[in-house]
């Protein structure tokens, strides 16, 4: 399947782009992260510590063990600092 992967804040800066289409058969967020980490050093750097990251699936906060079946948009970002 093809998913849109979005990056925000320092995740976007480390990976060097705000979004990309990714072809994957990963069953969960964690599996997708492992795939991305093998791509290039900048991905490995961005995902080195996933406890410092948050993930949203189709624009809703989720977690790294969530299944990806049916998901079209995945976003990775650091903890939010609004307000």
């Amino acid at each position, binding site marked *: 399947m093809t998913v849109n992967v979005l990056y925000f804040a320092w995740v976007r800066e480390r990976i060097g782009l705000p979004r990309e289409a990714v072809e994957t058969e990963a069953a969960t967020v964690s599996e997708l992260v492992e795939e991305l980490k093998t791509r290039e050093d900048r991905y490995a750097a961005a995902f080195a510590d996933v406890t410092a990251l948050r993930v949203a699936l189709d624009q809703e906060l989720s977690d790294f063990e969530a299944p990806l079946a049916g998901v079209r948009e995945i976003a990775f970002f650091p903890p939010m600092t*609004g307000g």
Partner: protein
Amino acid sequence: MAEVRVQADSFDAGAELNRFSEAQAGAGAVVSFTGVVRDVSGGLEAMEIEHYPGMTESAIATIVDESKARWPLTGALVIHRHGRLEPGAQIMMVATASAHRVAAFEAAEFLMDYLKSRAPFWKKEVTREGTGWVAAKDEDEAALTRW
């Protein structure tokens, strides 16, 4: 009854408060919160606020819906800016209205606590020495346990 705006433009907090208050029939209490860019270190040139278009609006709407389920509000307003803001600029505001003061205060604090940690905004400080992302504070995450 509830209004959410995510915008780059500045806003007039006083005019927004008056407009909001006038629409609250039956409310005896109106609470507002305005957040302002502070120059903590004395060298801040700007605060750059990134957000997640689409998710931002729906995440705030969810938080507002939750506040309306918990307190008997006649209305709620959230305005949050993104983009480059200079020290002294207003970042965001929240307003709540209810028959009684305790509900209006609690709902405003609830909205602020959740906007801090659950709405997809990220702040970056720009100083003469460079730039740096503002780290989330443990105390902001801990504040959610109150609710």
